[in-house]
């Protein structure tokens, strides 16, 4: 019998010691308490002041005890539910569970038919949601673009209204402010069966983005207040540029961005203690030559691993980044940068890894990139699952059974394990040369394009309830009127 048997905690990428994590956490507390952040929202400042924050004009300083109270009430583990009750599409947030999905709001999209870059349109949201619903390793949905062919104020609401019926995987929604946040929420709670039912089984997450350095913008704060009042799980994350809007050093940017997220954490937990909250953010380098935020830099994966570790040290889930590239098309660079960032994201165990499908440094969304990355995620997940060591997997008896000069193909042990121990790619080709040549010598790029088109031609996501379909029509009609009558 095994006693005091020690098991490896998992295949992980860890960059800090416990001492270093304590130093970083102290840095965050110092920034919040001694430097403070500008909060451009009067009501939020009042809420924070009433709870014990120091407010001077726009500057808000949060004493350590408030941060610690918020960390105590925010949950580490919770579930976001598939709208149709399909447990395979639920997202269970908790230790050692990394989930993947696309990202929000690039202006351009790679057309699935012409393969050219063009402005993102409403039908692209249908395409992205349908493909995301079908991909085995993509867990949540975002649109990969800002819809350009509807009234601008309704771009986010139309995006949600278009995606929601076409995927049962939870959506991470963004919005401009209170009104369209409400449009989105009404759609979601209609499907859930009302506000109370939604609170038991939340079916989407809301995304808010404040500004670096150290500014909580009105819109970002307004959206957190909306989310907290309506019990919507929320992400509050900056997109900081090392050397531009944040310190150039990884440790420095991790402290700053965590402090920026924690302003949202404290506010959300004051309004609704226990609200599921994801800390951020998107950390990368400002390329000092190209002047872009690099989505393919190794520092992105390194900094994201660091900020993930700090979040987990603090007992919070993290909004990760990966599967993205600075490349302009589906090429070797896109594959290299995307796959490596997916791999390190999986190794660091960030809870929701987004931007799978970002290309051109976040300027262009590409569902083709997402489809290619689906294989990279499967690959990474096989590795992070690690090696199970039990009397059965050690297989000494099986080795004795087969002996020298035998083979394992017939053995029950092979039969029992080959499907779970081996991962099979959907896109990476393992045929022999003749078969590959007979199929027309297809490249990875061609297979990705074919698979994407095949999914679009054949996949039928589970529909929303009839009342939700009606509600979507009514909510969007009312939203159109609201925008038309706006001065």
């Amino acid at each position, binding site marked *: 019998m095994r006693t005091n048997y020690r098991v490896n905690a998992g295949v992980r990428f860890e960059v800090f010691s416990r001492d270093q994590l304590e130093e970083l956490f102290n840095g965050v507390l110092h920034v919040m308490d001694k430097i403070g952040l500008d909060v451009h929202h009067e009501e939020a400042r009042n809420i924070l002041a009433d709870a014990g924050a120091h407010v001077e004009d726009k500057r808000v300083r949060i004493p350590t005890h408030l941060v610690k109270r918020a960390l105590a009430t925010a949950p580490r583990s919770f579930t976001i539910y598939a709208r149709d009750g399909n447990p395979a599409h639920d997202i269970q947030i908790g230790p050692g569970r990394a989930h993947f999905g696309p990202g929000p709001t690039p202006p351009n999209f790679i057309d699935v038919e012409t393969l050219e870059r063009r402005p993102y349109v409403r039908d692209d949201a249908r395409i992205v949601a349908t493909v995301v619903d079908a991909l085995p390793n993509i867990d949540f949905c975002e649109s990969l673009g800002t819809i350009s062919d509807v009234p601008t104020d309704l771009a986010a609401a139309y995006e949600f209204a278009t995606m929601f019926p076409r995927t049962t995987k939870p959506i991470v929604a963004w919005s401009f402010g209170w009104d369209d946040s409400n449009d989105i929420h009404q759609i979601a709670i209609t499907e859930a069966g009302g506000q109370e039912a939604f609170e038991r089984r939340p079916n989407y997450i809301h995304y808010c983005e404040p500004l670096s350095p150290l500014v909580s913008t009105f819109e970002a704060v307004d959206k957190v207040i909306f989310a907290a009042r309506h019990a919507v799980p929320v992400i509050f994350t900056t997109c900081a540029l090392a050397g531009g809007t944040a310190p150039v050093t990884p440790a420095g940017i991790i402290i700053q961005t965590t402090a920026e997220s924690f302003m949202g954490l404290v506010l959300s937990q004051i309004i609704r203690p226990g609200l599921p909250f994801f800390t951020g953010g998107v950390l990368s380098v400002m390329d000092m030559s190209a002047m872009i935020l690099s989505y393919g830099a190794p520092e992105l994966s390194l900094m994201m691993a660091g900020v993930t570790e700090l979040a987990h040290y603090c007992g919070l889930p993290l909004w990760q980044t990966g599967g993205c590239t600075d490349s302009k098309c589906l090429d070797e660079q896109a594959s290299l940068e995307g796959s490596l960032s997916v791999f390190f994201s999986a190794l660091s165990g960030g809870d929701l890894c987004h931007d799978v499908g970002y290309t051109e440094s976040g300027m262009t969304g590409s569902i083709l990139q997402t489809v290619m990355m689906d294989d990279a995620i499967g690959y990474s997940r096989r590795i992070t699952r690690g090696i199970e060591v039990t009397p059965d997997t050690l297989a000494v008896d099986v080795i004795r059974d087969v002996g020298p000069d035998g*083979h394992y*193909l*017939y053995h029950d042990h092979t039969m029992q394990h*080959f499907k779970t121990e081996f991962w099979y790619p959907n896109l990476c080709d393992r045929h022999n040369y003749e078969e590959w040549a007979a199929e027309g010598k297809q490249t990875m790029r061609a297979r990705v394009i074919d698979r994407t088109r095949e999914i679009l031609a054949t996949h039928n996501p589970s529909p929303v309830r009839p009342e939700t379909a009606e509600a979507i029509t009514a909510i969007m009609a009312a939203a159109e009127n609201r925008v038309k009558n706006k001065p």
Partner: protein
Amino acid sequence: MSEILKRMSSAVIQGQRDDTRQMARDAIEGGCSAEEVLYQGLMPGMDHVSGEFKAGRMFVPEVMRSARAMLNAMEVIKPIMVKNGIRMAGKVVLGTVQGDLHDIGKNLVGMMCEGAGFEIHDLGADVAPGQFVEAVKAFQPDIVGMSALLTTTMRAMEGTVQALVEAGVRDRVKVMIGGAPVTQAFADRIGVDGYAPDAAAAADKAKHLIAASR
């Protein structure tokens, strides 16, 4: 009657090796001919397996298990077929060539060919040209299959073909080769009748060679 043959097909597909033997006995007792059992029960199942394997929906260990299920049933019907003078799909002599001890590929081909209804004489690994010649004389096969994993042992295939020619038995058999470094171009160069890139393709190739020669 067709009910039991259908169940036999699905037992082959699912690799229920113990069931197929009993099913074959039941079928014969129930009045089926051995040929019906083979061509309407076992072979349709194995054809399905082969198709699923090519489509990537079944995997080697599962195909092996199906082939074994078929063989178990074959043990029941083979003596009857022999007694009635019914020919099998054909006879294959198999071996890994001289200097090469790798035989998992050759074993796979053997099992796939058995699944396709062939009678197999497996000579093992490190088989000298003379042993191939002797086996051709002794077993009178339709096909000789040679395997090699190494570029360094591939040459032995050419030597074996020459030995068959010199012994005057080359015209009596079709020769097939396979193994990781082997290509169609190599097969053409050394003058053999067929080449297959994997075990499933090898069984198909064997069937084609027989069909073409009959």
